[in-house]
């Protein structure tokens, strides 16, 4: 078979370039947008995905980690009594005001109190054991390396949180969060920084590790139905992470914005691509008409146009992928939160190919003018 679609695409590449670029850019935008959104919103679940806890216990109805309320400290004993629970750790969340060493004004920060001993659950995947161990020192805090300028501090500097002096003992990576700056401290330090009387001595969450993590769902259900310790709820880590991310995606309106933008990108890409393909069909309409005169069916001619659309999509996506990888690597190097997983990548690829296919279908209309009788004059 003579590869008419491909040969034409290569020979007349200048004619098809706008379509390739349109598909490529549409794909790239969708991909980067998805990576950014995933990156930004998965930071809402950072405390959960970065920790080794299987269960999270918090105030009933808590929609996101950042919206936790104090719970009864005696719950820790209730959890320890359950035979499936291997370890329990309190998590203190303190909304606080930061004054840096350099003059950066006030900053609203989240102080995260964790157990700095080896085997601690909270943020165990984000902070190295050595770094965590430094928090054992009184009034020691760790900040994210991307936040040092904003906070006006470096390692060894002294800052003030809620009027109390703290010392930066190290910088971590991957601690950036939505809505504020994460400052990591030990539980003792965090409790000293607490100014809200209602929270004194009361953890915001309790984290539990199970001896058999696969039982998390059943254990959560079992622990949930005990009302002797005041209001609380138990979630598996994955459920609570999803809950936090969905809260930011949907309840903040950001998700709708993303979908809207994706729609606009799709539309713009489809218009440019279909117009370019249509122009290419129009440019070859006499040749197509001749083939039809010779008996090559319209169905076969449509297939040629669709195949061209497919190649336009494939080449555009290839460019988008290469360019996208470069941009993602650059974003990572600049601590911009970008995350891509396989299902979302495949979805973006599918959307870009759908764009090419729809453009091809639209361009097929141009074949209507390929009437062989019009070649006779």
């Amino acid at each position, binding site marked *: 078979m003579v590869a*008419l679609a491909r040969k*034409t695409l290569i020979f007349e590449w200048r004619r098809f370039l706008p379509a390739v670029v349109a598909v490529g850019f549409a794909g790239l935008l969708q991909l980067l947008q998805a990576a950014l959104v995933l990156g930004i919103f998965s930071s809402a679940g950072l405390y959960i995905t970065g920790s080794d806890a299987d269960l999270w216990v918090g105030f009933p109805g808590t929609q996101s980690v950042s919206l936790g309320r104090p719970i009864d400290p005696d719950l820790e004993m209730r959890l320890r009594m359950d035979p499936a629970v291997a370890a329990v750790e309190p998590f203190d969340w303190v909304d606080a005001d930061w004054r840096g060493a350099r003059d950066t004004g006030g900053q609203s920060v989240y102080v995260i109190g964790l157990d700095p001993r080896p085997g601690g659950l909270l943020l165990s995947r984000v902070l190295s054991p050595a770094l965590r161990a430094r928090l054992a020192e009184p009034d020691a805090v760790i900040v994210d390396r991307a936040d040092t300028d904003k906070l006006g501090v470096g390692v060894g500097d002294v800052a003030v949180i809620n009027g109390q002096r703290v010392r930066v003992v190290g910088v971590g990576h991957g601690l950036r969060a939505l809505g504020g700056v994460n400052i990591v401290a030990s539980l003792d330090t965090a409790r000293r920084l607490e100014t809200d009387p209602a929270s004194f001595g009361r953890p915001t969450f309790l984290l539990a590790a199970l001896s058999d993590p696969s039982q998390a769902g059943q254990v959560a259900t079992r622990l949930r139905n005990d009302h002797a310790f005041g209001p609380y709820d138990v979630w598996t880590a994955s459920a609570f992470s999803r809950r936090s991310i969905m809260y930011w995606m949907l309840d903040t309106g950001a998700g709708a914005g993303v979908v809207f933008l994706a729609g606009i990108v799709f539309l713009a890409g489809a218009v440019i691509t279909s117009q370019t393909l249509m122009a290419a069909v129009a440019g070859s309409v006499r040749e197509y008409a001749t083939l039809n005169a*010779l008996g090559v*069916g319209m169905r076969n001619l449509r297939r040629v146009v669709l195949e061209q659309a497919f190649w336009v999509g494939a080449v555009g996506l290839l460019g988008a992928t290469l360019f996208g990888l470069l941009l993602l690597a650059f974003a990572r190097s600049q601590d911009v939160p970008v995350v891509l997983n396989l299902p979302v990548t495949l979805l973006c690829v599918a959307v870009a190919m759908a764009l090419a296919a729809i453009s091809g279908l639209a361009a097929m209309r141009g074949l209507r003018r390929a009437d062989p009788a019009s*070649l*006779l004059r």
Partner: protein
Amino acid sequence: MSAPAPLAAPRGTGPALCAEAISKGFTSGKLRTQVLDGLSLSIDTGELTLISGPSGCGKSTLLAILSGLQPVDSGCVTALGCDLGTLDDQALERFRLLHTGFVFQGFNLFPALDALEQVELPLHYLGLSRRQARERATQSLDEVGMTPRMHLRPGELSGGEKQRVAIARALAKHPDLLFADEPTSALDAANGQVIIDILHRIARGHGTTVLCVSHDPRLVHHADRVLSMEDGRILSDRRPAPPALLSRGATA
């Protein structure tokens, strides 16, 4: 390609094309122009028939109707024993695929394909294997003297060479009917003569019924039969005496 092949009359028996009382008109705005009005015609198998006449006399419309590219308003067209009026679009495409070749005034070659690929392209749709298609295409290009240049694209060929490739493309299908519309009018004298010789040889050598529309007077001496048209009617129908140099071969 799954539609049943329309029946075709065997070569050399009776008329290849037959038109009975065909009429065709076009409406442009409020104006109705009758191009053909009750025209009847029969074209014999294996002959080179030339239709000539002034612009707008209806000769191209007649060609479009006889080749199944346009339907008639009234009347009946039979090609190779098959009533074209009874075929739907797909069956007509299938009929054209199996039985007809076309040569147009514009060469209508794909810029991206070389001469060999131009000729091979329609053959694949006939269901020929890659090897068979290659063989037929090579043979066909050889017949029009284009073998040495079969790997060149249209942009690298002269007008006459492009028309020869277009003829090879039509010829490679081994059509029973070959329709040519002003095949020489875009060419200079020498190239026009080459094309005329090739068309003549196709009718003679392959027994193909060649119907050619042209106002090129050089073609008249090569035609078996010349029909002169004016205002949608056939004014004269004659068989010119064969010229002395009939056997002159095509030169590449």
